[in-house]
């Protein structure tokens, strides 16, 4: 446990001092700021069932695909390329401690980005909102949506970490993470849009596909519905990815 704490503190410090993190933060805030601005603009012109915050969160996939791979790509790939991972593994610290420390540090940075995003609706509410009318910041949607980001982020970050474990190239790790996250995010929706129920030989896929509906999970969380199934899905997926990451690191070393 001491190794894990030491490694986690080191990873957080490294992330804080890394230009890569700051570039990713800038990109994230620019993306989400832009999306939120257009959501506010749209909301002011057309009456919609969705609040600006809800409309903005609906685009969570954009930073997920463009920013998260930037955060995780270097975690192992760069260390393997430079050889510092081998040096790290000559200490009594276990591979699992190294993987979990890198994972939790990346997850913490990812959540910090989203917490920074909350400043947008809160500032808009403070500047433009009227007392008693919280539609501009919609706290229940905002914090519910952030809970979804935090829970699903466990799996998303672990996928990024796993992708970084299998290559020495940071760029390739980012590309692998992009493709994997795109597949995961789109899979549920794509499978649902297909009439697989009517295809006898694919009918069995309907039930699993229903569990992969990422956007439905966001809707549930933002609507205040706490369903245990997506939580189990994301947490078991996370454990699976991190387990594979440990095996990948040990296998390559």
């Amino acid at each position, binding site marked *: 446990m001491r*190794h894990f704490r*030491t490694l986690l503190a080191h990873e957080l410090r*490294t992330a804080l001092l*890394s230009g890569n993190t700051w570039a990713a933060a800038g990109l994230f805030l620019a993306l989400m700021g832009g999306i939120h601005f257009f959501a506010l603009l749209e909301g002011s012109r057309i009456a919609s069932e969705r609040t600006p915050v809800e409309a903005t969160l609906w685009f969570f996939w954009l930073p997920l695909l463009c920013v998260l791979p930037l955060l995780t790509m270097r975690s192992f790939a760069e260390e393997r390329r430079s*050889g*510092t991972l*081998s040096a790290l593994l*000559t*200490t*009594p610290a276990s591979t699992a401690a190294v993987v979990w420390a890198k994972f939790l540090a990346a997850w913490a940075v990812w959540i910090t980005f989203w917490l920074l995003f909350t400043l947008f609706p809160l500032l808009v509410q403070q500047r433009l909102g009227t007392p008693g009318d919280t539609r501009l910041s919609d706290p229940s949607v905002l914090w519910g949506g952030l809970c979804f980001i935090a829970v699903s982020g466990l799996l998303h970050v672990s996928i990024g970490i796993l992708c970084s474990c299998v290559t020495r190239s940071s760029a390739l790790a980012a590309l692998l993470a992009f493709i994997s996250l795109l597949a995961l995010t789109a899979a549920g929706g794509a499978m649902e849009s297909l009439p697989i129920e009517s295809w006898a030989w694919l009918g069995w896929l309907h039930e699993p596909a229903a569990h992969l509906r990422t956007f439905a999970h966001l809707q549930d969380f933002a609507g205040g519905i706490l369903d245990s199934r997506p939580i189990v899905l994301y947490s078991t997926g996370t454990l699976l990815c991190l387990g594979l990451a440990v095996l990948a690191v040990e296998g390559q070393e």
Partner: protein
Amino acid sequence: MNVTKPSPEAAVVAEKLTKRYGSLTAIENLSFSVAPGEIVGFLGPNGAGKSTTMRILAGTMSGTSGRAAIWGVSVALDPAGAKRNMAYMPENNPLPEDMRVEEYLTLRAKLKDVASERVSERVDRVMADCDLARRAAGRLIGQLSKGFRQRVGIADALLAEPKVVILDEPTIGLDPHQILGIRDLIRSLRGKMAVLISSHILHEVEQVCDKVVIINRGRLVAQGRTDDLRRELLPDCSFTVTTRADEAALLGACHRSEPAATVTPLAATTAGWNTFRVSLPADSPARETLAAELAIAGISLREIAEVRYGLEDIFLAATRRSPTEPRRF
């Protein structure tokens, strides 16, 4: 020291170590040991399997078969236990460029289970021992010269006062002053830690090591003290002779005392003086009387000196020998 376990007979044990990559065999049935406090040179041509062996001993790579143990702890069965007794500096000494020396060593000390209250003391100590304290402690590792980077690697290796230190090419790329510094540092470890050191600079190894292990094509070809290896691998006795006599005259004179003697010209004639190498069988009594015999035969001598074979000659003789016939001493 981290471990209170009593001192084992051997600090490092490699027993029939084998590593295969598909059809390629990197090392095969490699067996050797390092005693506590002993400094052992690990030699072999490029691609002989030195780094592979060191990585298996360090626990960063698993062997295909065989046994590796550090201070009595199996590297395969208890890697964390073995790593607590051992420090490994890999070839090229990879270091994080964006950390400061003191900060890096502090992190490594914590990861190497140095007691929290001793971390600062140990970091200061190894920085002082490796001459890093005044000029490099606060500098970014990425800005350090090659020599200082090597020093950081060695300081890291010494941090937790391990029983065993494995250094893969610690002097590679260093200038003669830096090599001298590293040599003194390694020499100061004699009796305190078992050191296994690989190097291509054979002169360095000869200066520092108590014993050498020589491998070729993944197999052990020789191990033992340099003097023992010299006697075993290069049993003949040679002299360098500088004389006015020609080769035939010298050979004739040598044959008077030793019929099996051979003469090889070494250097071109300069101002009438020729240099030859005279080789005699190991047990020839002529080795003690050659100079007198040559004088009696009227050979005018300017110089006669016994050739002392260095580690380089031993290394060449050992690696020329068939790797299918490993020898032990």
